[in-house]
């Protein structure tokens, strides 16, 4: 078999790429494969090695065991109403079909997320502004409470009192706005 790229040297490297269930085969000589590999690895998709491993990881036994323990009939039959992706499909592809999948498959996600993100299952980063001031206020409140504890521990009572007042006014604001919005 000759290399499909240069059509000259014999093909010594054989790859199979599967995208959305569609299989493409590559037969390349070492030199062309290097050029390919060069492009893929150095400038490639960030998640290249991760995604390859992901489907295998999702088929891992742990979530299944947990499922039996929860006496939930068969997770494979679970289907997202919005995009029609089944849990089985998700474990095969390693990607969700839409944002609602996160809700549909919620009970199976914690062990997966823990494994992928070193035990973490909750976001503690940026919040989109449009998602309403309430989330921002809550985050700010949590930060201020932490700050208050630190100031009390350091016996900086004057500054602690200022922070306490800020916390109170934030809590008032949350009480006024939070109810209707959430």
């Amino acid at each position, binding site marked *: 078999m000759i290399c499909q*790229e*240069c059509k*000259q040297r014999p093909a010594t490297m054989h790859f199979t790429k599967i*995208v*959305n269930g569609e299989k493409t085969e590559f037969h390349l000589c070492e*030199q*062309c494969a*290097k*050029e390919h*590999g*060069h*492009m*893929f*690895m*150095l*400038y*490639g*998709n*960030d*998640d290249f*090695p*991760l*995604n390859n491993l*992901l489907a295998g990881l999702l088929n891992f036994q742990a979530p299944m065991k947990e499922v039996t323990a929860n006496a939930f009939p068969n997770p494979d039959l679970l289907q997202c109403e*919005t*995009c*029609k*992706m089944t849990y089985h499909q998700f474990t095969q*592809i*390693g*990607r*969700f*079909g*839409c*944002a609602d999948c*996160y809700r549909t498959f919620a009970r199976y*996600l914690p062990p*997966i*997320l823990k494994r*992928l*993100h*070193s*035990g*973490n*299952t*909750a*976001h*503690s*980063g*940026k*919040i*989109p*502004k*449009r*998602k309403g001031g309430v*989330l921002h206020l809550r985050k700010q409140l949590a930060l201020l409470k932490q700050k208050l504890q630190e100031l009390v521990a350091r016996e900086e009572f004057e500054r602690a009192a200022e922070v306490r007042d800020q916390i109170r006014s934030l809590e008032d604001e949350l009480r006024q706005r939070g109810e209707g919005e959430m």
Partner: protein
Amino acid sequence: MSFEKFFNTAVSSWMSQEGPDSDIVLSSRIRLARNIVDFRFPTLFNSEEAKQIVALFERTFAHRSYGGAGRFELLKMSELQPIEKRVLVEKHLISPHLAEDSPFGACLLSENEEISIMINEEDHIRIQCLFPGLQLAEALEAASGLDDWIEGHVNYAFDERLGYLTSCPTNVGTGLRASVMMHLPALVLTQQINRIIPAINQLGLVVRGTYGEGSEALGNIFQISNQLTLGKSEEDIVADLHTIVQQLIAQERAARQALVKTLGIQLEDKVFRSYGILANCRVIESKEAAQCLSDVRLGIDLGYIKNIPRNILNELMILTQPGFLQQYAGGALRPEERDVRRAALIRERLKMEERRKMEGDER
């Protein structure tokens, strides 16, 4: 096209600037993955949804400018030639996945090529900011500001507990991938890198060489990026990566000093032999070119070579890839023709510097 003209249009403006610690850090990149509510993810969406998303971004952001990055132009993958797409990949502006597997893929590209927003890749959008040298915090600030600007016009898929919802669970939370491209020839030469990579992996970061994990890096260039996107804030993720990168910089600098001391004239000889190959070769494969460029770059950093700018490695690593070689040649090339073209392009580039140097001396 004359070489100078080709070269000037091929090199992005950010690429010819020097950044902090740019003797070791080639570039810093921030990528944010975002999705729009009410549309299925690219894994499952249909062509109608895909077109609507492209149209939404074209209508809202094309021809508008952001900060100092200049105006955005929308490039549709279906309207580009294969060589043009390949050139965009080689310039790190789009991913190979967008170029090859996304029929409805598009990209909003800023005038100075510092910002690219990939549309309909694995997620609806991927905001990418690329800065020279070690500027992770600056790149994060730019990406985050751009994220706010976009969010002013579209509704992102976001969950209070899980954060930004992404197609792949490896990106959920911040959707942030921060990565740094580093040139570490002394750590490779002293074999310390074999000890360092596993240690870095244990810290939740990923190190990649050119041929993948555990393999030799082409041109001694390594990419280091965060693996976790959930549970830590964007600032913490970037700060952790920054700390590790700074330690690597210190170790690389120490290893370089040790090499100068122990090898002395032999190291200088290695550098100038590689320079000799690049300046005179008529045929060169990508691997040899990358190794020689790495040696020359080290020679520039150590002060052995004075008439060539530092970023020559970044430029030539990109310019000597198949897409650029074929664009330079004006058509498709077989691999052995590429090896000849690659040699010619490198010689031209080095000659261009010599000419610049001579003109500078005359003045």
